[in-house]
């Protein structure tokens, strides 16, 4: 537990890092807090970058916030080295930031396509507001976009690009979109919806390379079948990898992300970590997980601040995330893939439904919802409580949700 003589440096000014700094002050911590961000922009919301066109910067906090809260904001600064023993950070301008506690919140970066032509002009990835501006600046009526990867980023951009009038083709190597994170019912309905909006979706299709147009920009995506998809713009959305180089070179234990415990502690005393760059335990499950989501980063920020200030640990969370595509508000809680059976509530083709994933005992282990906030909240609550549901009652959308519960919280 720290007192106000302790200096805290938070490295990374995304959602996780900014939340750590804000929560420290909310809970009355009075010592120096410095928030170091690599981008020149003040901390901003990332989710809108793929969901809305134009790359508008939506600040996480108003400009006056940081001065009022006495949070030192150092922007446009990359940390080159961390001396974990002394809690000293070396910045790229040669300056040193000396602290007592370091919280790493460096996030993840887009995975790159490992094929010929992947670096051609016109080939984009999406993580930052600058990425979003560069990409959406190239989209519009008559433009042709190929999205490589049918994950959430790819589908959100496909939706945004259609709104902007671009022709869109999504190429996914697996047999269906969202293979890692969604069930078949949801993936199939989303695919149908994107197709109805004029997006071409090719599944079970790998990319062999990208070829230039006469002007030197990307001109086509070549599939492994040999078929060529002419295009003006490419977005690569094939996942992200943790920014753990600093942690690794500082000697922190890493394995596909910085390893932390349920309090956000790394293997080095004095160094904590949060967000997309970490792999961490989840209550009630074995192993460690690297979750890439705003709610996950927020939970870890709570865990770290509770640990630092000696507060009660936050209640175990149910992981969740959201996505917006066209007029569909998707909210997903739990981890799809742990379930043995699924129960559909609502009309799968009606634009408003929920898919509950149940384990062998009838407990909800995940829920995927489309325009169904009540089902989402109920499912999340039932997961937290370990409630057992009656599948037939749950499937009856005309019956109140609460009548589905056999035992546990309603």
């Amino acid at each position: 537990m720290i007192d106000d003589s302790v200096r805290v440096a938070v490295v990374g000014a995304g959602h996780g890092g900014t939340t750590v700094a804000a929560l420290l002050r909310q809970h009355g911590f009075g010592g120096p807090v410095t928030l170091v961000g690599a981008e020149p922009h003040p901390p901003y919301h990332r989710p809108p970058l793929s969901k809305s066109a134009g790359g508008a910067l939506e600040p996480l906090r108003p400009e006056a916030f940081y001065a009022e809260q006495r949070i030192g904001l150092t922007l446009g600064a990359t940390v080159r080295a961390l001396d974990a023993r002394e809690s000293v950070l070396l910045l790229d301008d040669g300056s040193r930031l000396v602290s007592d506690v370091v919280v790493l919140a460096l996030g993840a970066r887009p995975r790159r396509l490992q094929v010929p032509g992947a670096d051609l002009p016109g080939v984009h990835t999406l993580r930052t507001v600058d990425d979003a501006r560069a990409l959406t600046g190239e989209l519009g009526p008559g433009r042709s976009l190929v999205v490589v990867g049918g994950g959430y980023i790819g589908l959100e951009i496909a939706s945004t690009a259609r709104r902007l009038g671009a022709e869109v083709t999504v190429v996914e190597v697996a047999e269906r979109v969202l293979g890692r994170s969604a069930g078949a019912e949801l993936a199939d309905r989303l695919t149908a919806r994107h197709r109805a909006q004029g997006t071409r979706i090719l599944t079970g299709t790998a990319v062999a390379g990208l070829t230039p147009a006469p002007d030197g920009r990307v001109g086509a995506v070549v599939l492994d079948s040999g078929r060529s998809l002419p295009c003006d713009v490419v977005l690569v959305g094939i996942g992200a990898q943790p920014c753990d180089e600093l942690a690794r070179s500082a000697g922190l234990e890493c394995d596909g992300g910085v390893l932390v415990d349920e309090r956000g502690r790394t293997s080095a005393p004095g160094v904590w970590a949060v967000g997309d760059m970490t792999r961490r335990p989840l209550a009630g499950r074995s192993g460690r997980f690297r979750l890439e989501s705003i709610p996950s980063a927020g939970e870890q920020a709570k865990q770290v601040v509770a640990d630092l200030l000696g507060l009660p640990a936050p209640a175990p969370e149910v992981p969740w995330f959201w996505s917006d595509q066209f007029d569909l508000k998707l909210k997903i809680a739990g981890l799809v893939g742990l379930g043995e059976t699924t129960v559909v509530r609502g009309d799968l083709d009606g634009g408003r439904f929920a898919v509950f994933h149940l384990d062998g005992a009838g407990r909800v282990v995940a829920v995927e919802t489309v325009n169904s906030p009540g089902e989402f909240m109920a499912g999340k609550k039932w997961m937290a409580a370990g409630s057992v549901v009656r599948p037939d009652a749950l499937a009856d959308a005309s019956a109140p949700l609460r009548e589905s519960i056999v035992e546990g919280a309603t």
Partner: protein
Amino acid sequence: MNLIKITFQDAASGARTVEVEPNGTVMEAAVLNNVAGIVAECGGGCSCATCHVHVDEQWIDRLPAPAPEEGDLVEFLDGAGPTSRLSCQLELTPQLDGLVVRTPHAQG
């Protein structure tokens, strides 16, 4: 523009009154002032239900009724009560000068 006062009551840290311009939402007023107990993960999209507040009974009838989406989110929210609202859906107006809300024990 005249500032208006909003009071956030918190079981752990007591009451805190902030003065803000009467535009934006109650959630934004809380975030600007780093009020404890308002998380607002989704930034005001009526998605995450982490900006839940209990509106003081004297004020609840002076607020516009919730849209169906907000009502559905709040119905199954842990710790929700009869005057629960999502503060990102409460637009500030000069008429809300003096509004009192209570933040819940935990969000989400």
